């Protein structure tokens, strides 16, 4: 990373403590076993929320883990870690994807926008403000993914990308049914769907 200062989180201290303990207790004779060889790594340059960072990570690192554990952007959430819940949704070059189902190494040079980059507490993105106004969450765990997904989804709708419920493939209409279908990759365990639809519909100029 090109940042001079990384705030140390409680998790970082805990992880560091565990790592230190492991090294201290590892028997010297085991140093050359395959277990002790560092796993293969890859270097990737990500432009996250406008800031370029170069990361050298274990090749297994997903984009989600790179954002959360290396870039310390914990807005994107790990829900199922298998692309089924949508809590990890971020925008890559403006398109929404599940960041848990892609490797950080595969995004060398890509522009990534997380919930932290969509808006700030003192300068909310319209979707963030609408989610607050419509009380579109209970526990809030799925919310960053819902909002990033909605931002990508509204852009797709505007670009004329059809959906499963579009009666005419060439003329998808901005309706609540379209929003429901297009947001089906984001699960809300609290069931705040009706308020989520209201918030997204308001920002998208759609009759809920």
């Amino acid at each position: 990373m090109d940042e001079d200062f990384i705030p140390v989180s409680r998790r970082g201290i805990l992880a560091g403590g565990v790592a230190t303990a492991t090294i201290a207790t590892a028997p010297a004779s085991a140093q050359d076993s395959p277990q002790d060889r560092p796993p293969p790594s890859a270097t990737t340059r990500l432009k996250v929320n406008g800031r370029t960072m170069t990361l050298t990570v274990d090749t297994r690192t997903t984009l989600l883990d790179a954002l959360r554990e290396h870039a310390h952007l914990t807005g994107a959430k790990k829900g199922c870690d298998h692309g089924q819940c949508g809590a990890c949704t971020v925008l890559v070059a403006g398109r929404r994807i599940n960041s848990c189902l892609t490797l950080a190494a595969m995004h060398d040079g890509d522009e990534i926008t997380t919930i932290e980059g969509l808006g700030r507490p003192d300068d909310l993105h319209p979707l963030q403000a609408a989610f607050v106004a419509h009380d579109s969450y209970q526990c809030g765990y799925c919310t960053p993914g819902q909002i990033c997904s909605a931002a990508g989804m509204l852009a797709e709708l505007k670009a004329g990308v059809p959906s499963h419920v579009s009666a005419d493939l060439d003329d998808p209409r901005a309706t609540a049914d379209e929003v429901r279908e297009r947001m089906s990759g984001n699960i809300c365990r609290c069931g705040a769907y009706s308020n989520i639809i209201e918030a997204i519909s308001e920002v998208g100029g759609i009759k809920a």
Partner: protein
Amino acid sequence: MKPFTYERVATPAEAAAAALKNPKARFIAGGTNLLDLMKLEIEVPPHLIDINRLGLDKIKETDQGGLRIGALVRNTDLAADRRVRKDYAVLSRALLSGASGQLRNKATTAGNLLQRTRCPYFYDPTMPCNKRAPGSGCSALQGFNRNLAILGTSDQCIATHPSDMAVAMRLLDATVETVHADGRTRAIPIASFHRLPGTTPHIETDLAPGELITAVVLPPPLGGTHIYRKVRDRASYAFALVSVAAVLQRDGTGRAAFGGLAHKPWRVEAAEARMAQGPKAVADAVLAGARTTPQNAFKTVLAERTLAAVFEQARA
């Protein structure tokens, strides 16, 4: 996930060379299915070859009047392509009925063809599965098999192919273009691309090790009414119980292919000769060899009714 080495390649030749050097390597494109399986250690490649930068992401018109779809064209882009929407609507509809918006933005045309079954026993490393661990047995035969195959099965595997897109590709008689690791190219008709399980359910396609899909080619448009009807347990973001892809012509002729019934998209050309006699005649011919279990016997009825609904929709 097991550790693996990783490399990015820039040309199909580089990809081929990398595959030749690492016989156990896997190509990674969208990664939405491969990484899912790697997390569960069902796929354990020691090396990944990232093919995302090969430039195979264009859709071009062919001299024959069809379309050549690059292997890396994302599902969203293929479904939204103006020419696909206009001339191959059944393909757009099939793509849009599958997965979620996020997954379609990442998943590729070639990767969709190569995605693996969602049989619950294939996905459960604690259970025997001939597809995951050849020779270990099939847990599904006596297990939870409500959503598994009724056609083309064997006593070693009753898994289904999960793709919607592939059903439309089969209907449209697409061709899969590939390049071997040694540089040779070939074109595989979609009908022979996917295999039936037989005694080797772990071998799912006609591809040789290291062979890379470069494009999927569509023949000239068929005209007619294009319909993709998918029946599933919830209204969105679920795999098919049964699906029907159809192109129906005004003179009563047409084509129909089925998803959710077999280890590959299921199309019986001989049954299509009965189109004018109505859906029951076609379904009877398609389902003649069905082998069902008490849990999935409903699929024969559902397939016939789904086809009937497709006929009705075409008339409306």
